[in-house]
């Protein structure tokens, strides 16, 4: 199965986001590189607003992800609650 990934800047704002991604995607692998964190997952990765809010302790708009986003792959589907990356094959 093809790998999807999302890469975020390594900073205070993304720490709880990365924790939330790990909670929602037990199969994901977190690679910590200089100044950035790259999260790989087989086929599919889901980012959930509610889990980020629990980790962060405040309301979070999923579009805030844009500020610290470095890169991603896969087909993107976003609504108010989730952002999903997936490959069809």
């Amino acid at each position, binding site marked *: 199965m093809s790998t999807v990934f999302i890469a975020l800047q390594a900073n205070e704002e993304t720490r709880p986001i990365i924790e939330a991604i790990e909670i929602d995607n037990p199969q994901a692998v977190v690679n910590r590189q200089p100044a950035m964190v790259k999260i790989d997952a087989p086929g599919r990765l889901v980012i959930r607003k509610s889990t980020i809010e629990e980790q962060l302790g405040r309301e979070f708009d999923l*579009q805030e992800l844009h500020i610290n986003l470095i890169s991603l792959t896969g087909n993107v589907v976003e609504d108010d609650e989730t952002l999903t990356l997936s490959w069809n094959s």
Partner: protein
Amino acid sequence: MDMKVAKKKLGLKEKYKLMTRDLGWDTTYQTKEDVFPYVGYEGIKIHDWEKWEDPFRLTMDAYWKYQAEKERKFYAIIDAHAQNNGHLNLTDARYLSALKIFLQAISPGEYAAHKGFARVGREFPGVGTQVACQMQAIDEIRHAQTQIHAMSNYNRYYNGFHAFADTRDRIWYTSVARSFFDDAMSAGPFEFMIAIGFSFEYVLTNLLFVPFMSGAAYNGDMATVTFGFSAQSDEARHMTLGLECIKFMLEQDPDNLPIVQNWIDKWFWRGFRVLGLVSTMMDYMLPKRVMSWREAWDIYGVENGGALFKDLARYGIKPPKGWDDAEKAIDHMSHQFMLGLYQWSFGTAFHSWIPSEDDMNWLSAKYPDTFDKYYRPRWKHIKKLADAGTPFKNYGLAKLCQCCQLPTVFTEPDDPTLTCHRESVYNGQKYHFCSDGCKNVFDNEPEKYVQAWLPMPQLFQEPINGDLGAWMEWVSLRDGKDNGDYAGSEDQQNFEAWRGLATTNQ
């Protein structure tokens, strides 16, 4: 006291519809064809522009809010960099060569992309497409500006940064990136989207921005990490736009497939050649390296590009024609490039150097099948000549590829000891190429590429007429300051002296 009633917030989909689709209108006193005259001639058939989806559903109000926050973060760090002698925190001033190439070749490309997206945003009839292209046009000009601003801090102290606009227009190696963007901007709107949005952004920019910016962090360059990641936060949106555009074309009409495939083949190869310079930046120019070009290619080329083309196979898309030749070149290209840059260093507005013994040991560990066999012996020979006081300089002019405009320094895909050379005859004139990929691009559109401005023929025209000194003046290259070997350069001497001052009380 009244109870505060929370206003019902619009959902993402609803807001996107209101603030994007509902901004469009149908023309009444002009025909659609007259308003959007360029959308048909490439042969791409679109039946329903409403099917265009921006998966992020970003609207202009949210766009301004998040971009403003990115700018605030960027300038906070740029100020700190300038206030705290950030330029002395670099691992080594050799690193600056990578930045100089970036400023001379890549940042002007961002500006070109801005112009291109402003144009195609006007040329596409769909409102969703127009809004997405408008955002990208603003992103790209922001990238050019923030990059130039960040690197201006280095221009105060080091050579080679002062004349990037002249360098972009006139020096030889920058014409590689320039011709890539000129080629895209002079294509139709759909081809432009494949060239920049898909091939460059989706398939290739990960290789440029991600490991290289991480490398900047490793080398103490706070300014570049900041502009790099600030730019890259937009790239994720650009990549998604590129992928969306390609899926849109393929879903709209089966007749679009062969046209799109042909563009993928062309622009993958064009992009691969432009990014060849990045291989050298990663393998040779970062004093502290984060990963090799080969390792970056395995992650972002083989794994990620492979996944993408597997996904697109459902539409009948095949991996680009040059894919296998690219793979065969990966273990050779950074070495071939650096050997080229070193021998022509009299004509570059950055420094190159002979890799140290430590550097060569790292290269041989990262390239076990190629470095010791093909490249270490050449560097050792070059080192011997330099030690004897007769450094190897090639004052002959490089033969350039008519398509990618790089010197034809690459080898045959299946024989690393033989220089690759192809030629085509068109209207009685002979044209030279570095590879099958570049020859194919030319043969498909010879009328376009016979018009290419090539830097080497320019040397023999007005105002230079074959005079090397006149050429240096024309390209704003200061001999003995901006060019040549890093060892003994002003940059090296100044960096060491200033760092000494910064860390002692002398």
